[in-house]
């Protein structure tokens, strides 16, 4: 399960020149602003775009090698593509759409068919025509149709971009379960940090036709360089945790992460469930000593890893805390007052109520 790609193409003023390698199943976000070359890159992987120079190897199959004049056409690549506009066949029922790829490729077997249909909740839509589906339903059918052709690589081109917040929430859980059950690598094109934080395992950042970074999503979001690159305030750390204990009498849920525990107001999740949480940079207090008599429930020992001053008021402090990295945003006044320098041991104080278990959620909180 690997994808190796090297592409080069000149479009007048714009040059696409990317090269990357992905070794494991899961979602790799192709992240970057509009016009960075994200869609062109996945079109090249699918064979819908033929770059002037390049080489693409999918699972030891060379599907493009311009030096050796190898070009495998899209229909033989076994690359599933979920287009931004779904592109369902309007004259076919949902079931016929789903079967389209299935019938033309080795395709999914009966058990896999039922599994995919169940995972995406498609059965009740079978007899409908695409025109009678909501945006979210269309997206789900498009994902199902691509998966049923049993691809060895799945490409998703901003499947949420055209949807409003409510429709996004309708489809995001399906994308999460797709990621968590993935047996194949997926590329997910997006320009939204929210989508990336919620869905991606790995991230490739594209800018002006070039790969500027590649790494794990958790490392990237807590990387001070990343917020500099995006020109935004730090997104905050996204941490993968699992539910360790429900402290019912206290109304708390204990979440375990690599190197410690976080107490949060009770989450209705089973013990053992994994989830992503977000700790915003503005929500972390830094202390040189363990404070006593303080309402915050989470006091984590950490070491200052890096400091960045985005302007003349703020300081972003990256903290190494167990196996993870946190980012705290404080004032430069506090920074000098506490004499915080790289390597200094500190305590990161996080109020339980500020921890956000709804990574990537853009709707208002309901439950």
């Amino acid at each position: 399960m690997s994808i190796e790609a090297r592409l080069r193409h000149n479009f007048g003023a714009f040059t696409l020149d990317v090269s990357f390698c992905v070794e494991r199943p899961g979602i790799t976000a192709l992240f970057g602003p509009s016009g960075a070359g994200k869609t062109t890159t996945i079109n090249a992987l699918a064979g819908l775009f033929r770059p002037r120079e390049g080489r693409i190897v999918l699972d030891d199959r060379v599907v493009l090698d311009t030096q050796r004049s190898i070009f495998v056409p899209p229909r033989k690549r076994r690359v599933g593509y979920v287009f931004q506009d779904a592109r369902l066949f309007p004259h076919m029922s949902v079931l016929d759409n789903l079967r389209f790829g299935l019938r033309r490729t080795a395709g999914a077997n009966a058990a896999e068919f039922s599994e995919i249909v169940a995972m995406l909740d498609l059965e009740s839509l079978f007899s409908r025509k695409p025109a009678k589906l909501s945006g979210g339903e269309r997206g789900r059918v498009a994902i199902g149709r691509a998966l049923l052709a049993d691809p060895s690589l799945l490409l998703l081109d901003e499947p949420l971009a055209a949807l409003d917040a409510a429709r996004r929430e309708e489809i995001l859980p399906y994308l999460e379960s797709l990621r968590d059950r993935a047996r194949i690598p997926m590329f997910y094109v997006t320009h939204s940090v929210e989508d990336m934080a919620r869905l991606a395992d790995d991230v490739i950042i594209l800018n002006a036709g070039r790969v500027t970074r590649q790494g794990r999503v958790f490392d990237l979001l807590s990387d001070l360089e990343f917020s500099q690159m995006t020109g935004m305030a730090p997104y905050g750390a996204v941490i993968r945790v699992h539910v360790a204990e429900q402290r019912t009498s206290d109304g708390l849920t204990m979440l375990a992460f690599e190197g410690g525990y976080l107490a949060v107001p009770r989450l209705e999740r089973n013990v053992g469930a994994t989830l992503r949480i977000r700790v915003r940079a503005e929500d972390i207090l830094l202390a040189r000593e363990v404070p006593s008599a303080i309402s915050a429930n989470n006091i984590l020992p950490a070491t200052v890893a890096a400091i960045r001053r985005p302007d003349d008021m703020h300081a972003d402090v990256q903290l190494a805390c167990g196996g993870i990295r946190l980012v705290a945003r404080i004032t430069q006044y506090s920074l000098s007052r506490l004499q915080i320098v790289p390597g200094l041991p500190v305590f990161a104080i996080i109020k339980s109520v500020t921890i956000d278990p709804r990574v990537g959620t853009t709707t208002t909180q309901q439950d």
Partner: protein
Amino acid sequence: MLTSAESQALILSLEVSLAGVLGALPIALLFGILLARWRSATRAVAEGFLSLPLVLPPVVVGYLLLITFGSREPLGGWLLAHLGLRLAFTWKGAALACGLITFPFQLRAIRLSLEGIDGRLLEAAETLGARAFDRFLNVTLPLALPGIISGAITAFSAALGEFGAIITFVSNIPGETQTLPLAIYSAIQQPGGEVEAAKLSGLSILLALAGIMFAQSADRRARALLHT
């Protein structure tokens, strides 16, 4: 209501038009596909040439057919000798004239519907493993079908009114080539034929109206097929 001669003219009109339009359909489809794919400047020239039957005087079309398919002409003689197919002065010739004159209607409708197909759907089909012919048969053609059908119905309605090319090529033979317009013409030529001419003209008007309504309902149904 209708005399047997009148109903004969009516049925013959329907038969001749239907045969002509259905015969021209595959050829229009073939050229429609070629034109829809043709991306060079010469396309306009080709399409102009193929549209000539619509703009030429029908009498000229009939004359050209006569000097091509007449039984003593090389091609007409060959067809008669080898296939036993006589076109001049037969209803088959009338159908050929109708099909040819209304060919540009069908061609244009087919080309426009094929060009209206979203190429992105074909890309999607390709990533799902469909070959070019498969994509054409299962995506392009069904989506173009409403346009193709309404083009054929328009051509059929126009064929019902064909006069010049038929009378020039296959003459005005009752029961063989005398379609409604020709029967009206003959009635007017006869002293006291005004009533008959009026009756047949009324019939033609009804037929034209029915054709338009049929075309509209077929189009609606075909489109509804995409959305239910």
